[in-house]
């Protein structure tokens, strides 16, 4: 009995001690702090980086390096602006039918990926669709600036432009590091893949700076590496925006680690003509905005593939896309149909938080 009582006391003491050790490990000796930064100057979108680092300076250096990488990709893949001493996609477009342009390897790699995506998507994702997208872009910009005078592009104009979208006229010479558009009317537009591709490359490279636990949110592209708080097994929580932006909360949240999530949707970039919304993802068959769904989100490791695939899925009926995703390994997707119904591939649900 007395022996028991002593035992009980030492057990209690041991319990209290270990309890205190757990508490102090969780509350005090933890070396990582959470930091956040935002910027607006890449890929015409808002970007946020959340990361865990030992101190502010380390985080600033790491997130700064990430930003600088994206800034470089943004300049290389820009089709609207020129930069001093830099050959970019605009240079290639401006030299269509004139001359091959010598470019950096990052451009060659992106365009090769674009060709792969074209094959994979049976032509739905086409980086040589710029002549058509340019028309939509101009009409959208005008319509946003002067909503009362907003109009749709004439079908005839779109059809003429669509004759200059043959990806075989994109000539890539790996040996000479040159790119040439044989068709003088053809234009590159890498909007469907460039952001995701750049995020994928930057996220791969950031490990060199020692950044191990971070979530990069670049427009509709999120890539999360490592763990929240740097604690193994503690995934990042990503909110999926509700296509109905007035709904007041996320559609749902998912928990991920070392994965990318990319959404293509009709609710962010659009303009209104006669009370009807026209968004920016154009169906190559109809030359009009695709109308199969409100949004589709793709979950997979490579953010570039996620970006291209989300565009591809946005351009096909939900059932067809679902069938395709179910056949693929390491890819899950979630669709929001026109009436708001949510459809998920069989493996997506395990990422969804209750």
């Amino acid at each position, binding site marked *: 009995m007395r022996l028991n009582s002593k035992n009980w006391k030492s057990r209690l003491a041991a319990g209290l001690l270990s309890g205190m050790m757990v508490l102090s490990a969780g509350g005090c000796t933890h070396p990582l702090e959470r930091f956040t930064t*935002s910027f607006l100057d890449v890929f015409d*979108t808002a970007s946020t980086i959340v990361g865990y680092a030992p101190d502010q300076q380390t985080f600033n250096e790491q997130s700064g390096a990430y930003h600088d990488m994206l800034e470089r990709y943004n300049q290389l893949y820009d089709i609207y602006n020129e930069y001093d001493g830099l050959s970019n996609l605009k240079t290639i477009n401006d030299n269509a039918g004139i001359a091959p342009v010598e470019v950096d390897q990052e451009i060659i790699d992106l365009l090769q990926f674009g060709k792969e995506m074209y094959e994979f998507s049976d032509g739905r994702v086409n980086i040589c669709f710029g002549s058509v997208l340019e028309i939509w872009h101009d009409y959208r910009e005008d319509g946003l600036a002067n909503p009362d005078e907003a109009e749709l592009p004439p079908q005839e104009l779109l059809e003429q432009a669509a004759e200059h979208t043959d990806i075989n006229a994109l000539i890539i010479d790996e040996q000479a590091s040159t790119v040439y558009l044989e068709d003088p009317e053809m234009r590159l537009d890498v909007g469907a893949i460039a952001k995701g591709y750049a995020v994928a490359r930057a996220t791969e490279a950031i490990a060199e700076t020692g950044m191990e636990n971070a979530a990069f949110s670049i427009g509709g592209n999120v890539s999360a590496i490592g763990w929240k708080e740097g604690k193994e097994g503690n995934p990042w929580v990503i909110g999926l925006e509700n296509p109905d932006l007035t709904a007041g909360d996320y559609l749902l949240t998912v928990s991920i680690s070392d994965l990318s*999530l*990319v959404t293509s949707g009709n609710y962010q970039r659009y303009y209104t003509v006669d009370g009807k919304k026209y968004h920016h993802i154009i169906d190559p068959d109809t030359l009009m905005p695709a109308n199969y769904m409100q949004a589709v989100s793709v979950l997979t490791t490579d953010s570039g593939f996620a970006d291209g695939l989300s565009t591809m899925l946005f351009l096909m009926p939900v059932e067809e896309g679902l069938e395709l995703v179910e056949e693929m390994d390491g890819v899950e997707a979630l669709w929001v149909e026109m009436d708001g119904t949510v459809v998920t591939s069989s493996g997506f649900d395990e990422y969804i938080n209750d």
Partner: protein
Amino acid sequence: MIQRQALEKKKSFGRRDLILLLAVLVIGLIGIVILYTRPAALNGEVEVAVDGEVVMTLPLSEDTEVTIEGVDGGENLLVIQDGTAKIESASCPDGICVRHYAISRDGESIICLPNRVVVTIRGGEKGDVDAVV
């Protein structure tokens, strides 16, 4: 024998042990309370940045209306009400910021790309979401 009995008596659970136990428990409880409630203080702030520069910081707890001067003469009307912040109206063509729901949790933000305005909640109620797509 008597000595041994006294020794054993000392070893048993006595009044002093109880006081010590209670003291340890109370100190532990106070520690837990301090550790886990510290960040939950209701002092969230609304940080407004234009083109990357923080131009104002407002308490989330005080209802107010402020016009944010964005770039190129653009304007966003920020309304703080009942512990939430939203953009009531704006000069930008796309209106994405106006359609965005009211924000209140740490790290949530509303962004107006044309006016280069970013409204972010700092501190206050912890948000559980790290990023949004």
